[in-house]
């Protein structure tokens, strides 16, 4: 049966909880950077030393990579490959699909190890899964609620975006 993604709404308090998980993971796994990316390629949170990184592109390419390997998985009869690891000369990339909806990305170098990252990601992944279950429910409520900032936008608001 086809499945249409629902709109995701991230409130301040939930963002802070997601960020806290990312920051703890970055610390505990001795990671350079930790990112939470939605499967559609939107960056939701980041922690660690991410200066100079093009995080928007990182998010989009992460989602593309997970989507492509997900397609491969289906061809060979798997539902998904939930864990991806790319080894570089200096830096490594570890990606995990959490709660079928988001991707947890960890960048680490020789100060950490794959074993440690996998161990810490497992714990952080379950915490994020719980958080996103709640976020998903709130998103659905927000979508049907009159408090949405988009319920009251006017044609004029939209036209102003394209004024020049």
């Amino acid at each position: 049966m086809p499945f249409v993604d629902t709109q995701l709404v991230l409130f301040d308090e939930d963002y802070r909880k997601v960020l806290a998980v990312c920051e703890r993971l970055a610390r505990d796994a001795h990671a350079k950077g930790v990112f939470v990316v939605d499967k559609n390629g939107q960056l939701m949170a980041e922690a660690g030393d991410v200066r100079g990184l093009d995080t928007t592109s990182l998010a989009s390419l992460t989602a593309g990579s997970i989507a492509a390997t997900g397609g491969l998985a289906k061809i060979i009869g798997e539902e998904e490959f939930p864990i991806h690891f790319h080894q570089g000369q200096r830096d490594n990339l570890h990606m995990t699909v959490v709660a079928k909806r988001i991707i947890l990305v960890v960048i680490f170098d020789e100060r950490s190890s794959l074993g440690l990252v996998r161990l810490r990601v497992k714990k952080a992944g379950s915490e994020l899964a719980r958080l996103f279950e709640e976020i998903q429910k709130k998103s659905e409520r927000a979508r049907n609620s009159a408090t949405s900032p988009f319920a009251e936008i006017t044609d004029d608001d939209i036209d102003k975006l394209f004024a020049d």
Partner: protein
Amino acid sequence: MSFINYASREINCKVVYYGPGLCGKTTNLQHIYAKTNPDLKGKMISLATETERTLFFDFLPLALGQIRGFKTRFHLYTVPGQVFYDASRKLILKGVDGVVFVADSQIERMEANLESLDNLRVNLGDQGYDLGKVPYVIQYNKRDLPNAAPLDEMQRLLNPGGAPEFEACATVGKGVFETLKAVAKGVLTDLRKMAR
């Protein structure tokens, strides 16, 4: 689908440019990239073959300005147009908020346009979307070429539903921003509908 972030007061939407091979999807994004203020755009990414044919997708993040205190960001994607990349096209449509169909006006590409439009309908359907309900605009590209099909014939064949439509020549930028504005407007109007 769109992502509303209250923490950063941002709304992110995804727009996909669809159409047959060599119709000018990448050229549309290249023109937008070239003509947009550097503060409002991110890096454009093209996953292409050595002969510069799109292999997986092009990606361009764009900021449009604020609406009710929220920064609106559009992520523009193209699909690979060549017929055999269908699996990739399906993946890129996931989570789409708005679609631009770029048609090639050359009369000998009419069948390719029709095939691609049909493919769009099927692939959207596989994801649970209906082309009639998704914000959607059509662009008749390459209007400057001598072998361009008459506009009314293209309208009759490709746009019987009367979606917003634009004539374009993407290589020189004609019609490119008009198309983008129309699809962005459609997406925002749809957000309002969903919120009500």
